[in-house]
């Protein structure tokens, strides 16, 4: 596909990179990335991916914008309070880059719809605020053999890991097992979060997607990157695939149909 003069100009600062070029730019324009959650992680990830010229961005969220979201969820403005996050996000992303087609899913992601929603994706970015959804995305993407990245944030720290099912890298369940219930005092609303932390982690998630699509650099596979912005530390924790993992182990089954996601049918984004 020939790039237009406008596209060459728009993407010139990344086409100029050895790792991207016109070939890489066309790969991005041909790609589809799905993003679960249009909160703080999703805001920065979606913004940079749309700007980079990802061809299709599927954005999935059921929630509406609240005043208390705005210190960190940078896709949403004060005027968007009470609007659907998907329409607020699509408004900004369409304005940012008309090359990027925004597909809106204004719904909960559940075991019933997760495979149908994600099956055409080249990469999935998990940016929800709860472990049940993270488990569901892990299991769905392993079943569909779609690479994905998961991040989580709290207070001044965050963590991120990437999973490439076809390469059998360690998955979220290799680390966290079958946890579906957590202490609610550990949520962002209770424990708090500084806005820059999901900003940084969302950028890292977008970077993982871009590197995978372009087949460049190193992914955050078989490790967790742990970020503490209060202490300025970026640490890596090596993890190993668990042969007995219920999601990706040697005798694993497709969990989406039968696992307990803690009542995810009615769960938050």
């Amino acid at each position, binding site marked *: 596909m020939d790039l*237009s*003069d406008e596209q*060459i100009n728009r993407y*010139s600062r990344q*086409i*100029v990179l*050895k790792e991207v*070029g016109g070939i890489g730019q066309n790969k991005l324009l041909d790609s589809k990335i799905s993003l679960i959650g249009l909160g703080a992680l999703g805001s920065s990830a979606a913004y940079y991916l749309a700007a980079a010229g990802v061809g299709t961005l599927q954005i999935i969220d059921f929630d509406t914008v609240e005043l208390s979201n705005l210190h960190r969820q940078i896709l949403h403005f004060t005027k968007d309070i009470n609007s659907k996050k998907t329409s607020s996000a699509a408004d900004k992303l369409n304005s940012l880059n008309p090359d990027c087609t925004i597909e809106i899913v204004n719904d909960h992601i559940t075991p019933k719809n997760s495979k149908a929603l994600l099956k055409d994706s080249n990469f999935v970015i998990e940016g929800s605020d709860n472990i049940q959804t993270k488990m569901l995305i892990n299991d769905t993407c392993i079943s569909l053999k779609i690479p994905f990245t998961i991040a989580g944030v709290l207070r001044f720290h965050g963590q991120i890991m990437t999973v490439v099912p076809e390469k059998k890298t360690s998955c979220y369940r290799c680390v966290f097992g079958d946890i579906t219930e957590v202490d609610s005092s550990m949520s962002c609303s209770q424990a708090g979060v500084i806005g820059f932390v999901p900003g940084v982690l969302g950028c890292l998630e977008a970077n993982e997607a871009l590197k995978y699509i372009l087949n460049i650099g190193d992914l955050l596979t078989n490790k967790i990157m742990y970020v503490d912005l209060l202490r300025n530390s970026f640490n890596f924790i090596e993890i190993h695939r668990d042969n007995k993992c219920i999601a990706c182990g040697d005798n694993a089954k497709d969990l989406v149909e039968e696992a307990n996601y803690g009542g995810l049918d009615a769960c938050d984004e």
Partner: protein
Amino acid sequence: MLAMSSIDKPSYKESTQLDIRGKVCPLTFVYTKLALEELETGRILEVFLDFPAALKNIPESCRRQNIAELLEIKKHHSDKPEWIMILKKL
């Protein structure tokens, strides 16, 4: 992307021509790089340009990214600041 120029006679056999007159850096290299990506190894690209800084910047970037080798730079017009840069795709 810019159409290959047909107004200038190629000076190399079986070369491809790219007219980026009017373009400034870094777009001079971006257009050159995109044209080189279309070529097979060993093929010649003749770049018509009029932005003086590109005479240094294009070969330097091509060398750094190992995508082309500079063969020569020729004056295109004696009375105008225009040049033809001959690159060989690596």
